[in-house]
């Protein structure tokens, strides 16, 4: 996993609720056996019509701002457990998803892949949408170490929650599997206690 560094970026606003992982990456693109290249098909059926023509007014096509922050409506990432959704978002270039509410499995999948999720109050999210819709060029700063998300115009400075373990993993690029492998003895003990 790549280390998560603080950065500045504009925001890609996607004001839709209940964005499910079938929308993020439709099932027909899950046939690969590697983790690469899923970004090409991120939001496939919103970005392209059935003749593979770009749908011009969809946000990701309309707004070309190379943003690393995806701002989305409530209950982002619901539905299927496919981790391909997190891979697709990361591969497309986002490093953070901001929403008022995330589905549980998606949250785990994101963090396991170096993709930060920032959860803020519904009202705050609304405010950011309004702000960004007025001016798409506003820069925001994401600082994981301080757990802050702020705008350069000085209007917004939010702190967000993340547990210490996940934070340490993201900042240092640590890998959960290395960690679990290092706990082998405890696992063996557990097994010998529980298996007759």
């Amino acid at each position: 996993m790549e280390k998560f560094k603080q950065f500045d970026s504009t925001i890609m606003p996607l004001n839709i609720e209940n964005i499910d992982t079938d929308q993020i990456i439709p099932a027909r693109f899950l046939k690969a056996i590697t983790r690469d290249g899923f970004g090409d098909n991120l939001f496939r059926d919103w970005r392209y019509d059935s003749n593979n023509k770009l749908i011009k007014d969809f946000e990701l096509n309309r707004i070309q701002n190379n943003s690393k922050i995806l701002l989305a409506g409530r209950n982002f990432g619901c539905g299927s457990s496919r981790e391909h959704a997190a891979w697709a978002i990361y591969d497309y270039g986002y490093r953070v998803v901001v929403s008022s509410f995330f589905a549980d499995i998606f949250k785990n999948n994101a963090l396991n892949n170096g993709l930060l999720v920032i959860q803020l109050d519904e009202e705050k999210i609304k405010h950011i949408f309004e702000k960004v819709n007025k001016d798409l060029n506003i820069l925001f700063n994401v600082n994981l170490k301080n757990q802050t998300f702020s705008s350069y115009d000085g209007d917004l400075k939010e702190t967000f929650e993340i547990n210490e373990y996940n934070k340490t993993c993201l900042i240092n690029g640590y890998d959960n599997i290395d960690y679990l492998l290092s706990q082998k003895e405890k696992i063996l003990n557990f097994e010998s206690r529980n298996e007759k």
Partner: protein
Amino acid sequence: MAKTLFDKVWDNHVVDYIPNGPSIIYIDKHLIHEVTSPQAFAGLNNRNIKVYRPDRTVATADHNVPTIDQHLPIKETLSRNQVETLTKNCKEHNIDLFGLGHKYQGIVHVIGPELGITQPGMTIVCGDSHTSTHGAFGSIAFGIGTSEVEMVLSTQCILQNKPKKMLIKIDGELNNGVYSKDIILYIISKISASGGTGYFVEYSGSAIQSLSMEARMTICNMSIEMGARGGIIAPDDITFEYIKGKKFAPKGDEFEESVRSWKKLKSDNGAKYDKILEFEASDIEPMITYGTNPGMGIKINESIPEKSLNSSNESYNKSLKYMGLSIGDQLLNKKIDYVFIGSCTNSRIEDLRIASNLIKGKKKADHVNAWVIPGSKSVEKVAIDEGLDQIFKNAGFEFRQPGCSACLAMNEDKIPKEKYCISTSNRNFEGRQGPGARTFLASPATAALSAINGFITDIRNN
């Protein structure tokens, strides 16, 4: 301290607590399939390690397999490659595989229970969100991502934060024509597609206890559709009776001993929940969804409401536009094009019995394409032995071979753009059943009778 059923099973599986972090949870059974496992095996190979407990891992091919001519090589290259990769990985790592052609092959959440792999008190995970199905047996079962599949393959453990606990209690007697699918669609319509997020749900009450195991599985299966990590139901005599004699279930004295310990798996009096919801069974009627998330459901004779819970007007209108519907529309008598009876929600033998019983001697409407996809080879076999396949065929339905099929439309079984499909599956998301497909979720009974009439039908009027 009084504990909930969930606490008991969870606490039994904690290997260690990480301060200010998740817990290390031991996994009793790991189910894998072709779509979400290849990258995890690749990870193991990169580290040069083997699967730690192949004896606790079971594999099947279901998500991406054809439902006709399963004896022939899979035509499509990418799908064939994915299935072959699973076979290769299982061989290399010594994992039991119930692949295409095997008599136990089927949808992962159908075969676990019917083979007796799923047992009370276990922790069960799979790279598929509907792993929640197995909670019907009083186990903690939930879906995981591929990184987590890799964790379990390499250490038989996973890192998880303990979810909050919700109790959903349904008392009373169910109305005629109401099936467990209606119960769960009703609950989700009341609390929305995100109402259970952050929670693990225990279902209880006399209406739940009266249900068969297969009906309980349908309820737990769709827990994820309200955002919950999973659902759990305390095991009882119905559970033990179901497990008895199953292929991988304990036998003889060992079974009796297991039952004695399984009987302790229930919530203590006074156990604390973070949230409790109560519903009356008599309020539940046959249900159907009209929108693009499972929370958008109504009683079958209601009309489309002005808005739905936890959805902005914009999202709501976008959803109705996708469905080609408007506020105030009635769904009853609406013409449909496809009927899909299948998926891990409703493709068990009981579902096929209910559906075939209703259509026996009748013919489907000419304009309808009706597919029945049994959940597993075992279900298929019983259906054939009982002559259900003939009933379906005589009615003009296609009776196909087991797999996920049009539930997620990864194989060729896709609903065409803008066509209406009554589906017994679990998700009505945009494009879920094929790009542009329009899905109405309902029970197998509603689906089957609607195929006969060619329009959405209230089974109580037939």
